[in-house]
């Protein structure tokens, strides 16, 4: 061992393509599985949630207007960047107490999952879009379009893989999102923000906040400019709160109960479809 002192990293948030601290300047201690403090994370507030939603909304027009091909390339680029930083993420997962073999598996699967969804961007509209044989003389077709801004309440298990499994189908479908990272394991999420930043993901498409879930879920799920909520926290109280808040502006809510983020149920286009709206266009046929 050398005598060199490690340089510790300050974990911030990722909002609008920048890495701000919480406006509150508050932090909380993140511990590993041995109860040892490994870092301070930002303790975000209602104001941070609002800023993040603002950024997500601002990015929505550009991102949803990108071609499917382009979105696929950007997702593939995220995978490339993550592949290049594998060691960093493996180390970070180990720091949190994960076994080395598990950490490698999680990071590699995360990369592969991104590639899986990168490939879907220009295919799901073909699989789920339809040309409808109406009886009148009209040409009529239905295509999926992004729902808009999605609030994601991330899981505490498999902190990197789960967040990627949640984000990838949402942004592959042209949505932008605000993520409340795992409360107990927020560090991989924040570092993943750095990967996003280094990829070609426009600022604001993905926004990552850390902090106490209880202080943010209410504000995120009741925000009038959030169109949908993807929740992985499976306690009845949280679910009910989100559902009730959603009814204020008819938000779409998906509750997603997963204990095993590695299994292949997390790789299917129906997860993209959860945050798509179907638009049907009619035009007369005639001369």
């Amino acid at each position, binding site marked *: 061992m050398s005598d060199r002192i490690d340089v510790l990293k300050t974990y911030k948030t990722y909002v609008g393509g920048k890495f701000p601290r919480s406006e509150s300047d508050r932090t909380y201690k993140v511990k590993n599985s041995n109860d040892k403090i490994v870092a301070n994370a930002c303790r975000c507030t209602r104001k941070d949630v609002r800023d993040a939603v603002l950024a997500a909304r601002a990015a929505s027009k550009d991102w949803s207007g990108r071609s499917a091909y382009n979105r696929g390339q950007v997702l593939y680029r995220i995978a490339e960047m993550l592949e290049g930083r594998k060691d960093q993420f493996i180390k970070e997962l180990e720091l949190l107490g994960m076994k080395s073999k598990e950490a490698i598996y999680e990071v590699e699967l995360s990369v592969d999952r991104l590639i899986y969804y990168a490939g879907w961007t220009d295919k799901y509209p073909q699989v789920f879009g339809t040309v409808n044989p109406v009886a009148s003389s009209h040409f009529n077709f239905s295509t999926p379009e992004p729902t808009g801004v999605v609030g994601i309440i991330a899981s505490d298990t498999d902190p990197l893989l789960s967040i990627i499994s949640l984000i990838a189908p949402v942004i592959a479908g042209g949505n932008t999102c605000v993520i409340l990272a795992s409360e107990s394991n927020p560090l991989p999420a924040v570092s993943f923000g750095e990967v996003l930043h280094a990829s070609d993901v426009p600022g604001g498409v993905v926004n990552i906040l850390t902090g106490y879930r209880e202080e943010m879920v209410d504000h995120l799920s009741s925000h009038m400019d959030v169109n949908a909520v993807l929740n992985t926290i499976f306690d009845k109280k949280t679910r*009910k709160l989100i559902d009730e808040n959603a009814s204020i502006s008819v938000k779409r809510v998906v509750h997603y109960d997963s204990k095993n983020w590695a299994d292949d149920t997390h790789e299917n286009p129906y997860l993209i479809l959860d945050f798509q709206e179907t638009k049907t266009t009619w035009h007369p046929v005639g001369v």
Partner: protein
Amino acid sequence: MSEKTKENEAEATANGSPKPTSPNADLKHDFASFWNYSPAPESSDFVEIRKQYQHYIDGSFSVPAKKRYFKSINPATEEVLAEFAEGTSEDVDKAVKAARKAYDKVWSKLPARERGKYIYRIARMIQERARELAIIESMDGGKPIRESRDVDVPLAAAYFFYYAGWADKLDYAFPGRKAEPVGVCGQIIPWNFPLLMLAWKIAPALATGNTVVLKPAETTSLTALKFAEICMDAGLPAGVVNIVTGAGQTGAAIVDHPDINKIAFTGSTEVGKIIQKSLAGTDKKFTLELGGKGPNIIFEDASVDQAVEGIVNAIFFNQGHVCCAGSRLLVQEGIADKLIKKLKQRMETLIVGDPLDKNTDIGAINSKMQFNKINEYIEIGIKEGATIHQSNSSNLPDKGYFCKPTIFTGVAQSNRIVQEEIFGPVLTIQTFRTPEEAVEKANNTPYGLAGGIWTDKGSKIFKISQKLRSGVVWANTFNKFDPTSPFGGYKESGVGREGGLHGLYPYVNLK
């Protein structure tokens, strides 16, 4: 220079190049001074309407637990049409139990093909009794017989016909997945298209193997109970379809029933939000088809005469009681004056009156409550400083709830009559200069159900339709419906789609 030549010149240069104009382009449709339409009433002699109707539960008509009834009136005459059972939570519970039993014992065990054949039978029987159903629909709800005869009833049959065929083909609908029914569905429908909305709800639910408890709207229960007769005639197993009549409380009893797996609601956004809230924390699936404030965008290069017809169809179809009505007209500045002038002329030719008269274009407002609401909004519009114009050609009948076709000009985006759903024959007119401004205004309400675009330029249609945040876009047409065509809203206009393959999703769990 005369007014006429000025206008023609302006028109000729509006799009950069001169266009040929007819010397009669400005002639007014002055039919009224040439002749008057003679009455052409549809006979309602052969229609049997009983004095009192019961719930339809477990295959038979069932007296309500509390033995209370409410009266339903003909909105065109204000006369009582019939009495309907007032559904309580006891009645709803009985219906849900019947639906559960039918689901467990019969319907889920029936081969899919046989299930489909029952639905085909229903479709055919609706066609067979089409005229009777159309007349009843017009008497009960006030809509013109032409609409119930040519739109509501044939489309209702078509929805059953379409979904019947899906019953044994579901394996092809969801790639990589197997569809399973959700179980018992609670369905609550509105009064604007009573039988048609019933078809939208029941047809896909049965095709996918579910059983249903349906509540029609309290002002329009009659065709639902006629439909119950059809279910009996078709030999549909008892309990597969149950119909409980009543108002809001009956609906709440359905929403809150613990043994219902899915709620399908069509109605106002206000009630939709209440339903979504009361379902919070439960595992019930739900779809909501809610309100709208549809933009109808007319570009300078549109065919003005076609657009005028489209505007009339968009807002005056079914007295404007259409969730996807084109109730906000957005017209490009260059043609605004001309278009509004033509629209006003066209409005003069609309016949408001007896729903059973085949000449009638605009029938009765569905209920006194709705009549009052529309008039309140007209008052609000005037108070907000907008300029009102109503057609004057028709003398409104002395009795019944009738409303003249109404347009408001000089409105602002923030006006209540622009932002809130009126659900009547009331149109607001705004102008715009650029396509971007049109899109901005079009999307600037909490709703997102449907919109219209009128232009002769194909690329403009695609550009604008992509930018409209709404579930349906009608380009150079409006208010078209088809069983193969998915329908449903973005934003506060609802969740989920009805119609087409997409309309199967709400009624299945994918494994």
